[in-house]
């Protein structure tokens, strides 16, 4: 099985301080579902930033889609970022755009024609239960609704990897379950999912999901999935 993400001895240091992430070595495989857990401050968000190319590591090797992401030129980064969907912990919705325009943003950035994006965006709004809030600005949406818009924006472009930082942090248990089902549905279509969470109850909700645990910037591998490729989900 070809790896989609490969980390080798990756370290990340902000400024002159101690390393936030140390000696991370792991491989993620296409079509797999991973939970990234760890206490607050363990480095989950920093690891996700490396995954969605918001940060370059201080040392080590990162291969993404088979290419060296560490020495990749800036000009090539946008093309790679369009293959990654991101749900930010703080949502990062554009405040002056409607829910519809926020969800359509990745498609517009990718140059999709206007008439070709109306239907998928409307379907996505329905999928996350916000079909009647298409014109609402983020400030008028509740925390949970904003989170669903952020998730819809992350998945609208059918990314090859979806990286989600605490995606269920602001929603009730029922909505959390629905969102997880949404991720699973995407996963069954072939998208690799990485969900950072400190909610251990979520881990049992997705059959066949692998777990990566960060402790003080280092990675432990309790399921062994990072060393051994998982079975495809339909056989897990």
């Amino acid at each position, binding site marked *: 099985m070809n790896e989609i993400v490969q980390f080798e001895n990756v370290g990340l240091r902000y400024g002159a301080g101690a390393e936030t992430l140390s000696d991370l070595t792991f491989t993620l495989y296409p079509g797999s579902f991973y939970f990234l857990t760890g206490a607050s401050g363990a480095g989950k968000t920093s690891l996700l930033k490396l995954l969605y190319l918001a940060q370059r590591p201080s040392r080590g090797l990162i291969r993404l889609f088979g290419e060296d992401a560490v020495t990749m030129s800036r*000009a090539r980064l946008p093309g790679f970022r369009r293959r990654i969907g991101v749900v930010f912990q703080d949502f990062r919705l*554009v405040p002056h755009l409607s829910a519809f325009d926020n969800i359509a943003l990745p498609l517009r950035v990718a140059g999709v024609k206007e008439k070709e994006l109306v239907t998928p965006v409307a379907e996505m709004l329905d999928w996350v239960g916000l079909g009647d809030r298409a014109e609402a600005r983020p400030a008028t949406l509740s925390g949970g609704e904003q989170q669903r818009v952020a998730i819809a924006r992350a998945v609208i472009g059918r990314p090859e990897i979806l990286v989600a930082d605490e995606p269920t942090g602001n929603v009730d248990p029922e909505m959390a379950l629905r969102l997880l089902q949404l991720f699973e549905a995407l996963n069954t279509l072939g998208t690799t999912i990485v969900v950072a969470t400190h909610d251990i109850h979520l881990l049992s909700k997705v059959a066949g999901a692998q777990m990566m645990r960060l402790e003080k910037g280092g990675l432990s591998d309790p399921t062994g999935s990072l060393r051994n490729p998982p079975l495809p989900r339909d056989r897990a």
Partner: protein
Amino acid sequence: MFSLFVIPGHDRRLIPEGRLSGPMPWVIAIMIFLMVLATGAGLAFAEAGNNISDQLSSRATVQIIEANPDLKAQQTNDAAARLRGMALIEEVRVLPPKEIEDLIAPWLGQTASEMEEAQTGTLLEDIPLPSLIDLTLVRPAGEKELAELRAAIRPFAAGARVEPSSGLIAPVIALVRSLQWVAFGLVALLAMATAAAVIISARAALNTHKETIGVIHLLGGTDEQISRLFQRRIALDALLGGILGLICGTAIILLLGIQLSALGSGLMQSLGLSWLSWLIIGLIPILGMILAMVTARMTVMGALKKIL
């Protein structure tokens, strides 16, 4: 450049545009207004300098200095006749006494006609003025030509002086040229100040929309896509401000032109603007917009390069 203004509406909404609500269009309007005035002045001085030089470079004046009026008249006629026969000369004109009196009247306080009315006689009777022969040469009057002229009239009027007209007004031309370059220097300084204002505005806009830019970047937006949004916004600000500045500046130039014409001074009346000069002035808002766009692009691209 046209494609810059036809960015789709949804892209334009990414960076909210507050037309005329911020200081930028007004700052650019003031800059363009001053640039129009300085450019108008510089071009007017340039044209005046060229006109004066062209008119005077191939002209010379012969002064026949002789106290005896009869002898002076004889020498003047002989010299004029000799000069008319020279290939170097295009036109010879002996200035009539009344014209000479009118020339110096402003310094003496009375014109010949006023003296006649006052029955105090004429200037020529009271002051031994030289007679003047105005020469138009077929080419600019250099030292060689002047020496040739002096040699030609010496046998008829030994005390005659030959002066190039350009020599008399050379300090004025030098002053006009200096003013021209001062005006163009001001235009350059104003252009630099405009660019500085655009840099400050672009940086402020980048800072204001930092979050949105970060999101667009992480969703795969390119520097070019982000830069175009700012370029368009600043180009429109510059164009609006530029047109306002041009209208005000042109009005002032026209008013000054009317006032200068009313002065009736030959030197002042030579301060005109040709259609080419007006065209250059009309292009200032466009050039200002291009300057603002290029500056904004360089500023935004430079800032974005610092972000991964």
